[in-house]
C-alpha cells in the first residue's frame, strides 16, 4: 500500500519528543506546529474544559516570559500564531519568515514546557473562556452539534463539549491546571512539525535545544474512563431554539477510529458519493430535484477512538420526517445495489484532488502531519490516496451495509421555538 516515499523526516529525539520536518524549497515561510496529545479526552470528567482553558493559559507566559511578550515577538516580526484544542489534541502554531524561526521557536517551547499559569491571569482568562462559551451558546449549529455528540457518544468524553461548562470552570484552580499541564505536556506526548524554507540539520539542532528541560510529570487525576459507545437502535432528540429561521436535521452513525484506517477512508468515499457536490445522490435528489432541503451535506470525521459519520440537512420543519425517511431509504439502497464505476471514480477524484489542494502551503502540510502524528503516525496520511484508489464499488457497498444502517443511528432535530 505504501508505495509512495514519505517526503518528510520523522525523528525521535532522546527525550522521547517526535520531530517531523519537511523542507520546501523556494518558500520564504516556515511553519512550526506543535501537537500535544492532551485534548479534552485526557481530562477527568470533573475537569471538563481544562485542556481548552489550558491552551488559553499557555499564552500567559512563564517565569522568564511575561504575558503577551510571545504574541508581540511573533507578530511584530510579521508572523502569525494561534492554537486550537479538540478531543484528541491541542496544537500551537507559528507561521513566520524562515530566518526568524531561530529567534521565535525557543519562546514557543518555553511557553509549552514551562507555562507559569499565574493565579491572577487564571481568573481573568477564565472570564474570556466564559465569553467564548456564551458566544457558542448563541450559535444554533454549535448547540445542535453538542446535542448530537452527547446523544451518540453518551458517557464517552467525545460527548462532552471541548469548552467545558461555566459551572465546572468556576470550580477549577490554577494548581489543578499546573498539574494537568505538567502531567500531559511531556515529550512522549508531543510532536513538533516544522515545514517550509529551512533545512533538516539546523531544524534538529534548534528543536533539540528549545525543547529540553521538561519538568518531571506529577501525579494527576486520570482521564475519565472512555468505553467506546455502541448504539442499540435509533435515538431521536428534538430541540426548540429561539431565533431559528430554519430547521436542521442531523443524523449520525458511529464508525471505527484510527485503528481501521481503510474503513475510515472508505466512509470518506461514501460521504462524497452521498452528498459532495450537485451531482451527488442526496444533493441532486433532495435539493435540486425534489427541492425538499435548502442544503444537505455528509461528513466523516476521523477521531482516534471512535469516528463519526454525519448527514445534515437544513430544511422546513414540516419536511424533517420525510427527509429522514428518504435518507434511510437511500442508505438501504446504497447497501443493497452496486455502486457504478462512474460514481466511484468521481468520488475518488474529488477526494484525491482535495488532498492535493490541501497540501499546497507549508501550514496545511504541517497540520496534516501533526494531526496524523498525534492520533496515529505521521506517515499514515500517505496511505490516504492509495487506499482511496484501491476501493471497489462492491467493497464500498458492504461498508455501507455494515456501518450506515438505518437501524442504528441518532438524529438531532432543531426547530424554531
Amino acid at each position, binding site marked *: 500500500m505504501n508505495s509512495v516515499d514519505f517526503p518528510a523526516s520523522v525523528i525521535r529525539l532522546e527525550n522521547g519528543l517526535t520531530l517531523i520536518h519537511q523542507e520546501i524549497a*523556494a*518558500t*520564504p*515561510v516556515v511553519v512550526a506546529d506543535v501537537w500535544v496529545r492532551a485534548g479534552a479526552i485526557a481530562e477527568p470528567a470533573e475537569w471538563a474544559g481544562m485542556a481548552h482553558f489550558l491552551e488559553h493559559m499557555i*499564552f500567559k507566559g512563564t517565569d522568564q516570559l511575561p*504575558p*503577551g511578550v510571545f*504574541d*508581540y515577538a511573533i*507578530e*511584530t*516580526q*510579521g*508572523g*502569525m*500564531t494561534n492554537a486550537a484544542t479538540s478531543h484528541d489534541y491541542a496544537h500551537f502554531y507559528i507561521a*513566520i*519568515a524562515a530566518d526568524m524561526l531561530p529567534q521565535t521557536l525557543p519562546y514557543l517551547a518555553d511557553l509549552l514546557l514551562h507555562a507559569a499559569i499565574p493565579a491572577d491571569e487564571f481568573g*481573568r482568562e*477564565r*472570564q*474570556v*473562556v*466564559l*465569553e467564548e462559551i*456564551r*458566544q457558542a451558546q*448563541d*450559535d444554533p449549529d454549535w448547540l445542535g452539534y453538542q446535542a448530537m455528540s452527547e446523544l451518540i457518544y453518551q458517557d464517552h468524553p467525545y460527548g462532552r463539549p471541548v469548552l467545558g461548562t461555566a459551572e465546572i470552570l468556576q470550580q477549577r484552580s490554577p494548581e489543578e491546571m499546573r498539574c494537568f499541564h505538567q502531567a500531559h505536556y511531556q515529550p512522549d506526548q508531543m510532536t513538533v512539525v516544522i515545514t517550509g524554507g529551512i533545512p533538516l540539520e539546523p531544524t534538529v539542532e534548534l528543536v533539540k535545544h528549545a525543547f529540553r528541560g521538561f519538568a518531571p510529570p506529577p501525579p494527576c487525576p486520570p482521564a475519565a474512563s472512555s468505553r467506546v459507545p455502541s448504539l442499540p437502535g435509533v435515538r431521536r432528540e428534538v430541540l426548540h431554539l*429561539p*431565533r*431559528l*429561521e*430554519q430547521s436542521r436535521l442531523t443524523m449520525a452513525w458511529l464508525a471505527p477510529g484510527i485503528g481501521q484506517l481503510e474503513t475510515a477512508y472508505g466512509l470518506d468515499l461514501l460521504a462524497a458519493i452521498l452528498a*459532495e*457536490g*450537485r*451531482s*451527488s445522490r442526496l444533493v*441532486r435528489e433532495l*435539493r*435540486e430535484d425534489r*427541492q425538499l432541503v*435548502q442544503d444537505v451535506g455528509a461528513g466523516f470525521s476521523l477521531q482516534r477512538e471512535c469516528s463519526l459519520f454525519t448527514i445534515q440537512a*437544513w430544511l422546513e420543519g414540516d419536511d424533517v420526517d420525510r427527509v429522514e425517511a428518504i435518507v434511510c431509504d437511500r442508505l438501504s439502497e446504497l447497501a443493497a445495489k452496486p455502486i457504478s464505476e*462512474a460514481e466511484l*471514480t*468521481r468520488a475518488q*477524484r*474529488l*477526494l*484525491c*484532488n*482535495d488532498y*492535493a*489542494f490541501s*497540501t*499546497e*502551503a*507549508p501550514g496545511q502540510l504541517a497540520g496534516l502531519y501533526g494531526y496524523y502524528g498525534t492520533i496515529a503516525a505521521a506517515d499514515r496520511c500517505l496511505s490516504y490516496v492509495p487506499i482511496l484508489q484501491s476501493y471497489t464499488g462492491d467493497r464500498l457497498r458492504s461498508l455501507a451495509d455494515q456501518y450506515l444502517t438505518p437501524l442504528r443511528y441518532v438524529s438531532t432535530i432543531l426547530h424554531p421555538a
Partner: protein
Amino acid sequence: MTASLLQAPRLHRTVLANGLTVLVLENPVADIVSARLFIRAGSTFEAPHQAGLVSFLMGLLTKGSDTLSSMAIAETVESVGASLGTDAAADYSVISLKTVSADFAEIFALAATVLRQPSFPPDEIDLERRLTLQQIRSMQEQPFTVAFNQLRRDMYGEHPYALPGIGTEATVSAITQQDLVDFHRQHMRPDNVVVTIVGRIAPEAALAQVEKTLGDWMAPATPLPALTLPPVTSAPTCSVVTQDTNQAIVMVGYPAASVKHPAYPALKLINTYLGNGLSSRLFVELREKRGLAYDVSAFYPTRLGLSQFVAYIGTAPENAATALEGLRFEVERLQTTVLSDEELQSAKNKLLGQYALGKQTNAQIAQLLGWYEILGLGVEYDQQFQDMVAAVTVLDAEAVAQEFFHTPYISLLGPEAAVAPLAAAQA
C-alpha cells in the same frame, strides 16, 4: 517575502484584441492550477430595487448555458474532482476554478462558456430564488450579522454598500429573467474582464487557452457602463436590536477612506495596530487585561467607494456599556495620542508580514493579482502598497485618526435590559 513572485519577467500581462486582460504566473511547485475570471461589475451597479441582482446572477452562471444543463455542468466539474465557483462582491464579481494541471483546459473552457453564454433557465431561477430567500432569512440567526447589517444600513443610507450583497427579500422576489439577461449583456463583455491563471502551466499554454475560449468574444460597440453612486451624508446614529442572546454585540463604525484615497495605507496600519492579532491594542486592552470578551477586533474593508472602519466586541450583556466605552476610547484616543515609533514599526512589520503570508497558494496569488487589476490599481499595486505602508509616519497616523475618527455610528444587539438604556444614553 514572496514579493519577487509577482515581479516581471515571471508575471505575464497581455491584453487581447477584444480588450480582455490576461495575467499569467507560472508556479511549478504543486500540480495545481488556479484561475479567476474577474468582471468589473459588483453590487454597486445594481439599482436600489434590484439589490442582490449580481449575486443572484453569479449564482446562476453555473446553473445552465446555451448547450449545458445545470446538472451537466456540475457533472463535468465533479467528475474530474475540480472546483468551479462564483462570487459577487461590492466592487467586482468573479468566477474561480481550481484543477490539477491535466484537467485545466477542460474546466477553464467550461468557465469561459458559462461566463459568455449563460441561459438562466426559468426552473433554475425559481430554485435559486427559493434558496436565496431562505439564506436571507437565515442571516437573522447570527447575532454578529444582524448587528453588522444594521450598522451598514445606518452608515450608507441609499448607497449600495448599505445592503449585504445577497439583497433583501423584497428585491430578490422581484428579479426577472429579463433583468439577468440585461445585466449580463451590459456588463459581461471582454473589455470588462480580467483573467488570472497561476500554477503549473506554461505562460504560452495558458494564453493560448484564453485566446481559444475567449479570444473571439466581441465587445459591443456601446461604451462601458459608467458608475454613479449617491453621495453618503454622515449623520451618526445609534441603533438597537433587542434579542435574548447570551452575549451582547457592540459595534462602532466610522466612515473611512476608499482604496484610492491617500489615507488608505495609514488606515490599514491603524486597523492592524488596533484590531489584528493577539498583540493588537483592542485584544490586549479589552480581552487580555480586562477579560471583557473572547472576540474583539476591528476591520477596514478595501473599497473603491467610501469605506468603513469598524470595531466590535461580543461581551456579557452587563458589560455592554463598559465595552462600548472601551472600544470608542481605544479608537478615538489615536486623535490625540501619537503612536511611538516602535508601535508604528511593529504595526508595519505585522501588516507586511501577514500580507506576505497571504500569498502562499496559487489561489491566493490569482485572487490578489486579478483584484488589483480589476479595481484599476494594476498589478504594480502589490509593490506600491508595501512601499506606501513602509512610508507612513506617526504623524500621518495621527492626522488620519483626526480626519476619520469622529463620532461613530453605533450598533447594539442584546437583551433589552442591557442595550436599551445604553442606546438611550447615546441620544
